[in-house]
């Protein structure tokens, strides 16, 4: 554990995080920590019903309450804002525009129906209690099947049949594949809704400067630039007069990738009032209204040879989109699932069709690896193929996995795979497990009446993915910029459009820059979260891009400045550039430490007296680098999961969890491991505990942390991690690792549970979450209620 002043060899070391002093002392500035003079507080009154026409709203009493500054109804808000419109020119996509605050119809429990601005949150909530809304109830749609049924209530005029998007795509000769099959193996899974639930909820502080007409929005967001860009139009603010900032962010997990109607209402309110307003979502609102993810139902049909070789695969997916579209469009989720699903396996033919269905629920949002269901269903299917063909789960994967020797090759979805080591991580993992011992232990346990299960899985993760991959998905894959400056005293400032919220970019980017420029961690500052200062990017922090993309921009930027500095130094020291090094901020001739010049001296010259610097040198010490990812790439991992199932209580305990991952070169192994363990914990929690549940009327059932069960420390296993640092020959051979744990862990877990069920002759898990009740139903101990 190096301290902050190491001078080289930073990359690859477990250096202390730069972020830690701030967060450990509580000195961070999260949205709710912001206090401005005269700041007002916002509270949204939200719909208590899932689907209704608003026939009246009386806000007079609320407006009259002392301390209440303004109450906006939907009509008031629509007079000063444009509807949120996420529509994109995607064939067949029905993406209705909608107002920041509902004024005619509400379509989910929790939809904003009024915004109260008051001197305190307490008063704003008092005022909300005085507002009377009259609803004319409409029948709610609470599932995809209900939404698709004949005569189903229609959510939107412009979403016929409640189908937001439907598509079918064919790759290869699927008919031939099934014609040749020895077995057709079918499977299905009904995944429940669960949510990001960052510990910091959504929120923001909007300040309108009446003098300059400038609006500043300090937000809890993953993407400052996209937020600004979309916000400007919807609040009718000239974009050059709009600044979006972000300081500390208490987690996002995909949720904070989009802009929400609350952002629009809040900024419009600040503008209308002419001052500062704050809104922080409380946990109750967050659970009810912030949106949730993962509600998908898939069916699979695989054509396989007798030896378990995959010939073809047909998949259908229904995705419960909730009521309102957000960013990205739901077609992106479908595209991700479709494109990634074949994974690291040889698959000659493939057919994928999906229907995205609007329902009376909060929006379907991104959650850490939004495509995750593809890995979940594929890895379950592999196990089912194994049992159908009478081979082991290990063998079925061996027979179908693409190895390094097979590459480069193309996935059936037309994505080139190169340097993909899923097979190698899998072999390494299997090498670490004594499979015979696992089976012996299971037998011994069964003899004592205990039930153990073991499951594996493997996958590839587009982190960051490739041009081809994102083209197949239908989402842009932009280059990543970074501005870097050597300051007048030789210290370094870098400006990134990343908006880190736990991913340690201040540390990892400093490590990369430090090694390139020969300066210590403490002499580098990473600036993020300010659209006035950072270069533009549509993407911010999400999609596990940073490890490759932001790193590349940092390295290229630092290298460019290093070249300029060394060029100048070579004149000053009368030495060849090749003989120079920079160590701890001093440029010197290798082997002759006396011949040296401090970086600070060169910088001072460049900034103050560039005309006195050596002729023909570039004295500009600020540079905007851009990195295209050199084609990008994939991360991969294999997981093994051991469970014990209590046949009396139905509780599933994960007794051991092993991860072999390969994200290329690790910039900071401690950061990588933190992402992996955190990801696994989230994946396991999602399968066993968490549920954003609705009842048949569309009422939300998980509105507190007493009902929405976040995994706590005792529910999470110790995770063993092995790294396989396969390095490509690219300048940046680091790839993302933020999402994979959450993507793959559910598959290994469900395979382990199914393995246990099979030992006692019971059927597999077909729907999640795997609650103790469901477990005992599967075990045949209790009847289905």
């Amino acid at each position, binding site marked *: 554990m190096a301290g902050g002043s190491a001078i080289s060899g930073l990359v690859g070391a477990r250096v202390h995080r730069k972020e830690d002093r701030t967060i450990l002392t509580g000195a961070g500035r999260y949205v709710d920590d912001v206090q401005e003079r005269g700041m007002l507080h916002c509270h949204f009154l939200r719909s208590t019903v899932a689907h209704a026409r608003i026939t009246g709203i009386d806000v007079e009493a609320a407006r009259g309450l002392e301390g209440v500054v303004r109450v906006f109804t939907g009509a008031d808000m629509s007079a000063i804002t444009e509807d949120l419109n996420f529509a994109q020119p995607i064939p067949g996509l029905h993406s209705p525009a909608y107002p920041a605050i509902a004024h005619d119809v509400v379509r989910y429990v929790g939809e904003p129906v009024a915004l109260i601005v008051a001197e305190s*949150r307490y008063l704003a909530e008092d005022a909300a209690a005085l507002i009377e809304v009259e609803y004319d109830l409409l029948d709610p749609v609470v599932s995809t099947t209900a939404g698709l049924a004949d005569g189903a209530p229609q959510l939107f005029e412009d979403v016929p049949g409640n189908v937001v998007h439907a598509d079918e795509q064919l790759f290869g000769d699927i008919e031939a594949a099934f014609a040749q099959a020895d077995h057709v193996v079918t499977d299905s899974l009904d995944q429940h809704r669960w949510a990001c639930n960052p510990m910091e909820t959504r929120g923001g502080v909007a300040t309108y400067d009446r003098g300059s007409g400038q609006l500043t929005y300090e937000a809890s967001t993953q993407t400052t630039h996209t937020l600004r860009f979309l916000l400007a139009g919807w609040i009718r603010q000239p974009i050059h007069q709009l600044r979006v900032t972000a300081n500390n962010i208490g987690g996002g997990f995909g949720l904070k990738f989009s802009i929400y109607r609350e952002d629009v209402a809040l900024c419009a309110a600040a503008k209308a009032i002419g001052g500062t307003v704050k809104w922080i979502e409380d946990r109750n609102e967050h659970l009810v209204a912030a949106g949730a993810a993962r509600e998908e139902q898939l069916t699979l049909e695989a054509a396989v040879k007798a030896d378990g070789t995959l010939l073809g695969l047909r998949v259908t997916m229904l995705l419960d989109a909730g009521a309102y579209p957000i960013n990205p469009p739901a077609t992106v989720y479908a595209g991700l699932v479709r494109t990634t699903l074949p994974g690291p396996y040889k698959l000659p033919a493939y057919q994928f069709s999906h229907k995205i269905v609007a329902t009376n629920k909060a929006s379907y949002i991104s959650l850490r690896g939004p495509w995750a269901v593809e890995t979940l269903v594929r890895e379950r299917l592999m196990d089912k193929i194994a049992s159908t063909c009478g081979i082991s789960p290990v063998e079925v994967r061996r027979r179908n996995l693409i190895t390094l020797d097979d590459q480069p090759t193309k996935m059936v979805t037309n994505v080139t795979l190169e340097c993909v080591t899923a097979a190698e991580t899998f072999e390494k993992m299997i090498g670490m497990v004594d499979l015979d011992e696992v089976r012996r232990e299971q037998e011994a346990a069964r003899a004592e009446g205990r039930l153990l299960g073991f499951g594996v899985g493997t996958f590839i993760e587009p982190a960051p993915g490739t041009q081809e991959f994102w083209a197949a998905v239908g989402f842009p894959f932009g280059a990543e910029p970074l501005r870097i400056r050597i300051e007048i005293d030789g210290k370094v400032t870098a400006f990134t459009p990343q908006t880190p919220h736990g991913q340690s970019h201040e540390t990892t980017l400093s490590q990369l820059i430090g090694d390139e420029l020969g300066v210590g961690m403490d002499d580098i500052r990473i600036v993020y979260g300010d659209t006035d200062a950072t270069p533009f990017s549509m993407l911010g922090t999400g999609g596990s891009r940073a490890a490759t993309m932001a790193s590349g921009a940092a390295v290229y930027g630092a290298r460019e400045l290093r070249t300029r500095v060394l060029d100048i130094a070579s004149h000053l020291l009368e030495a060849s550039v090749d003989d120079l090094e920079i160590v701890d901020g001093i440029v010197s001739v290798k082997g002759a430490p006396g011949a040296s010049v401090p970086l600070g001296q060169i910088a001072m010259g460049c900034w103050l007296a560039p005309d006195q610097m050596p002729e023909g040198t570039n004295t500009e010490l600020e540079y905007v680098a851009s990195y295209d990812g050199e084609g990008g790439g994939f991360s991969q991992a294999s997981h093994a999961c051991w469970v014990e199932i209590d046949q*009396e209580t*139905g509780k599933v305990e994960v007794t051991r969890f092993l991860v072999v991952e390969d994200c290329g070169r690790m910039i900071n192994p401690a950061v990588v491991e933190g992402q992996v363990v955190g990801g696994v914990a989230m994946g396991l929690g999602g399968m066993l*505990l968490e549920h954003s549940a609705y009842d048949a009327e569309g009422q939300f059932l998980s509105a507190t942390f007493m*009902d929405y*069960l976040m995994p706590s420390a005792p529910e999470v296993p110790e995770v063993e991690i092995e790294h396989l640092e396969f390095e490509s020959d690219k300048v940046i051979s680091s790839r993302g690792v933020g999402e994979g744990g959450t993507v793959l862990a559910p598959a290994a877990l469900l395979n382990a549970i199914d393995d246990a069920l099979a030992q006692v002759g019971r059927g597999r898990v077909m729907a999640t979450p795997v609650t103790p*009740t469901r477990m*005992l139903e599967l075990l045949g101990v209790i*009847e289905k*209620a």
Partner: protein
Amino acid sequence: MKPAAFEYLSPTSIEEAVQALTDPDDGDTKVLAGGQSLVPLLSLRLAQPARIVDINRIPGLGEITESGGVLTIGTLVRQRSAEHSDVVRRACPLMAEALPHIGHTAIRNRGTVGGSIAHADPAAELPTVAACLDAELVARGPRGERVIPAAEFFTGFFTTALAEDEILTAVRIRSAAPGTGAAYEEVSRRHGDFAMAGVAAVVRLDGDVVAEARIAISGVDLVPVRAGKAEAALVGRVVDEPTLVAAAEAGVADLHPSADLHGSAPYRKHLAGVLIRKAVRTAAQRARESR
């Protein structure tokens, strides 16, 4: 999630506190003890009393004493203090075992023994312990003190026999007799959550035969329930597996638990049976060891 406005009183004597509850007697006053249930309810605005009477400043309500074979726990004794009390461990091992199941350390540092019983959550541990041991709940009101047997105390879902102007001041429990063993078993979704079901069991053995059995179940009804039939199925018998199975069957036969997100009705009923077996088995084992 901010509490609605209320008036706040912090009496420093029990008389004052009772007075504060009596006047005005519009039924809109709430006692505040540890606040670990009440304050979240205030913040969620599920409770919006006009007045709050904070009893934390009343001296004398936070003592644990044992005399004449009776353990008395003042209503304000923090759950964590009770958990660490040698007196409680000796005189009421059942409660000592149940306490750590309540929430988490920081919750128990503030939550009170009396508050939990007065709150009467049917899934909570202490009401179940009280029901199991036929605790006496001591209440003070404008008409003076009265003692309410646990069997009459829990009257419905989150409701008790306490009148609106009464304060629970203490819990009295007969000290554990020699030759008895106790056990508290529960299953919750996560560590520290309210249980899907829990079972408190006390067994007194005469030789190898059960002389007395007390079983109470949480989480399966509107109130903690005494499993009288299970108790009857044990008395006079040796605690072996067939007896346990029979007792568990008898104990759950009349249960009609309701379902929620965390457990279906059949699940809770099944779980109660499992826990009866576990708890009674352990209690009997401990009874044997205590001799």
